[in-house]
């Protein structure tokens, strides 16, 4: 019986007690060991998110690279954490996917044991803590993760909330848009331009125009950044796009994205 655990609501702490959490990622006293020399980790690249009339749109290309080699062209970087939260990842997928799993289970564990949903601030902090616990891998150059976190806040009239993080776990809330990963400079350029000089600012876009902007931004990034997959026209591989609204998370069907791409991007 686990009575000594009474009151434990921290899922990572529970995993640690059972020896189920990888401690290698914690920062060792020696700090950066340079162990990364000669080892190039797999990297997932460009993700973006912005608020529009229908909530918040989160999109990611599908490419994973290692150095200048394309490892995989169907990677899923836009991950559902709970009914209203998405973590999108840029960085090392081995670390990021594990982090997403821990986060997903942490939020569920909290809800199930405490019989209430964790607050938005609590969720944001939970991810921040996971990133900080991963700082050992960051210093060794083998496990950098820079995620975007998007969720819906039901307090008051309700509104979507959007955050991006740095590799140490600092969270930055944004009012309009966020992008991380190797293709993000180009994406930020496109989103800034659209928001400032486009037909409408991002937050006033309807869903189909928002999808167009997302596809164009990723395509722009792919044009100069080889690590960004953008849209693979030959293999017909499209970015993954999810939308968070009051009603939950909606994954746009590939057909819909393909059609939108054909009409407004290709």
């Amino acid at each position, binding site marked *: *019986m686990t009575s000594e*655990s*009474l009151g434990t609501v921290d899922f990572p702490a*529970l*995993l640690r007690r059972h020896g189920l959490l990888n401690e290698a990622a914690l920062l060792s006293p020696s700090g950066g060991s340079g162990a990364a020399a000669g080892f190039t980790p797999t990297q997932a690249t460009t993700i973006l998110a912005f608020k529009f009339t229908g909530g918040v749109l989160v999109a990611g290309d599908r490419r994973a690279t290692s150095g200048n080699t394309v490892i995989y062209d169907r990677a899923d970087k836009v991950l559902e954490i709970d*009914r209203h939260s998405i973590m999108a990842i840029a960085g090392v997928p081995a670390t990021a996917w594990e982090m997403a799993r821990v986060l997903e*289970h942490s939020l569920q*564990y909290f*809800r*199930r044991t405490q019989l209430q949903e964790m607050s938005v601030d609590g969720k944001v902090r939970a991810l921040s803590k996971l990133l900080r616990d991963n700082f050992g891998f960051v210093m060794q150059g083998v496990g950098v993760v820079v995620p975007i976190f998007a969720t819906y806040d039901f307090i008051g009239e309700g509104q979507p909330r959007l955050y991006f993080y740095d590799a140490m776990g600092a969270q930055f809330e944004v009012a309009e848009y966020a992008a991380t990963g190797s293709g993000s400079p180009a994406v930020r350029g496109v989103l800034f331009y659209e928001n400032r000089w486009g037909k409408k600012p991002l937050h006033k876009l309807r869903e189909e125009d928002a999808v167009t902007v997302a596809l164009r931004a990723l395509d722009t990034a792919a044009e100069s950044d080889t690590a960004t997959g953008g849209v693979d026209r030959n293999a017909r591989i499209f970015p993954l796009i999810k939308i968070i609204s009051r009603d939950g998370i909606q994954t746009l069907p590939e057909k819909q994205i393909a059609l939108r791409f054909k009409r407004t991007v290709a």
Partner: protein
Amino acid sequence: MTEEPYRWVEAIANRREYIETQLASGSPIAALSYRDGILFVTVGRARQKLFEIYDRIALGAIGHPGDIERLRMTAIELASTEGFTRSAADVSLRRLAFYSLSPVLKTAFEQVYGAPFLARMIFAEVGATPQDDLFLRVEYDGAITAHGPAADAQPPRFSAISGTTRATELMEQLLRRDHEPDCTLNRAMKVALDAWSAGSLPPTDEGDGKIPSKETLAQHRAKELESSTIEAVILERNAPSAIRYRTLGGEELKALVSA
């Protein structure tokens, strides 16, 4: 004392009697399959009695809140660590109840110098069809009554608990007579509420052990609901998300109950 077998048996019998007395006033809980999932229903005052354990597993419990809480936490911990280290598909109610909870309950019950768990529980796990649904009634002494795929060829697709054996048997009689596993949620709610009413009616001298008439049940329920509320949760068979547990409340519950 434990060196003297007779006194040990006597102590266990006393303890059983004590626990049964403690549980006797518990409000019944009915759990039953319907076409699109599993429905749990009870009626209570303030304290929540139906809980989410994991994606496809729910719990209904009567007894001491402290003991229920310890068992509930243990079940969630076990399911969550299993689901995290392996996968959600590896979380199994059968393993959870038979291999983890039952031995702990039995040990606590039989160690006469320690405190037993004052709790009686129904666990249910929703499957792909009503035929795959699993219901386990878990007692304070670790005994488990299983209704499910492995139990027998035509197992009942329901389970019920209440404060007394008499009331539970009455509920099961009613469920056996009225419940069809392929029914709608509306229909399942009606049958579940009837079962609750049958289980919570105080025993009468005449006709005891027989299912009371619909009117008697409805009358009793109406009176009880003046000071209590219905608590209902479902495990959805075909929900788009992995999490199948959902609390019924507000307008949705009102519509179901009055339909």
